[in-house]
């Protein structure tokens, strides 16, 4: 099975929760999709379970977005292949908190 080295960038509060820096590197088995990346991320950092995706439905939380290669991938099906640049580690997969005023 192909193992890909994927970079994931997290918002500040999730970095604090997982006790990591701005980016983490993950080894993702098989096709690199939002689902496989987040499954791997949550397996390595269990404190993140339920914070990016709903525990039960695995749906993305409404105030979070998935970006990569200057594209908003938030509304792609979770099993859609991410861009090659993400699969090769050239570009990070970005989990972003929605901006909010006040």
């Amino acid at each position: 099975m192909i193992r890909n080295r994927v970079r994931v960038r997290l918002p500040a509060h999730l970095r604090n929760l997982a006790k990591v820096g701005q980016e983490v590197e993950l080894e993702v088995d098989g096709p690199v999709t939002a689902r496989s990346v987040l499954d791997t991320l949550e397996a390595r950092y269990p404190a993140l379970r339920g914070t990016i995706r709903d525990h039960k439905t695995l749906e993305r939380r409404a105030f979070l977005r998935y970006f990569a290669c200057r594209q908003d991938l938030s509304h792609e099906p979770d099993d859609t292949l991410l861009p090659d640049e993400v699969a090769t580690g050239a570009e990070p997969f970005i989990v972003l908190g929605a901006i909010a005023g006040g």
Partner: protein
Amino acid sequence: MAGVRVLVGTHRGAFILTSDGKRKDWQVSGPHFGGLDIYHLKGSPADPNRIFASQATDWFGQVVHRSDDGGATWETVGNEFGYRGDAGTHQWYDGTAHPWEFKRVWHFEPSLTDPDHVYAGVEDAALFESKDGGQTWTELDGLRGHGSGPHWQPGAGGLCLHTIILDPSDPQRIYIAISAAGAFRTDDGGKTWKPINKGLRSSYIPDPEAEVGHCVHHVAMHPARPGVLFMQKHWDVMRSDDAGDTWHEVSGNLPSDFGFVIDVHAHEPETIYVVPIKSDSEHYPPEGKLRVYRSRMGGDEWEALTQGLPQKDCYHNVLRDAMSVDSLDPCGVYFGTTGGQVYASADGGDNWTAIASDLPRVFSVEVQTLP
């Protein structure tokens, strides 16, 4: 020398205020979980160094933190709150059926005897418990499964289970309260529940004396008299002398009987405290004067406590879980405001001091009396 630890949940993190038994000089630690909504923190009576904290935001959902060293360090524990079985529906604001959805933990109530056992009151209203220090959570679904569940309807703040009271004389008896369903009691450890709202009267529901539907804001009990309950309802301060089976109003001479908090003196079971708020549409003290009212006879006759509190131009609120007492002698009383002040009285309410003045909006205040 004995000391006090005040656990403050706010809109932008948790703060821990500590003092020795004199309660004159205070140290502030925090923000813990800075920038995040911390709805509630509470320590275990069986192990005061174990503290549970509820972090809940629209961005990242529910996170549960636990400290085993009095709040110096924290670890995350389980945050999966799954309703048992088919969750069903409750009423929505427009009266339609709405699926039960977990949103956040409003209140933790640790067991009186087992530091690994803790209850969680959540929105949408349900009661969960953990027997492994918060790692896993199981719903006590007899409550939500009470026949009235499909008729429960959220108040403006959500359909929240915000009050949990454990009876120290009977481990099988628990009281809870839900906005806007009312108060409930179990006598079998949470398997079955009964509404305990007889005597409540609420003009904002179609049947003012309905079995459920009352917007109970908070309930308090003195541990030495577990059958006597005091309630701050949306409007009306109420009292029950029969474990909630019947209630009667004790608002007496209060300037307003609307409010959120209510608590009982640690050593005087008939001495109770409320903070009157002007009305349901004006959530600030009457006349801009922040006054705690104390009754020494369990209600009906109240005196205003003002010394040290702002007596003009004060327009903060005091939210339902934002008052607590210590068990020193004399009893200390504490409350936090939506303006970010935490006030303390080391003499049962006669004199007050702001022990923190510029915190974020205060959601909750809990006090631990340390040996």
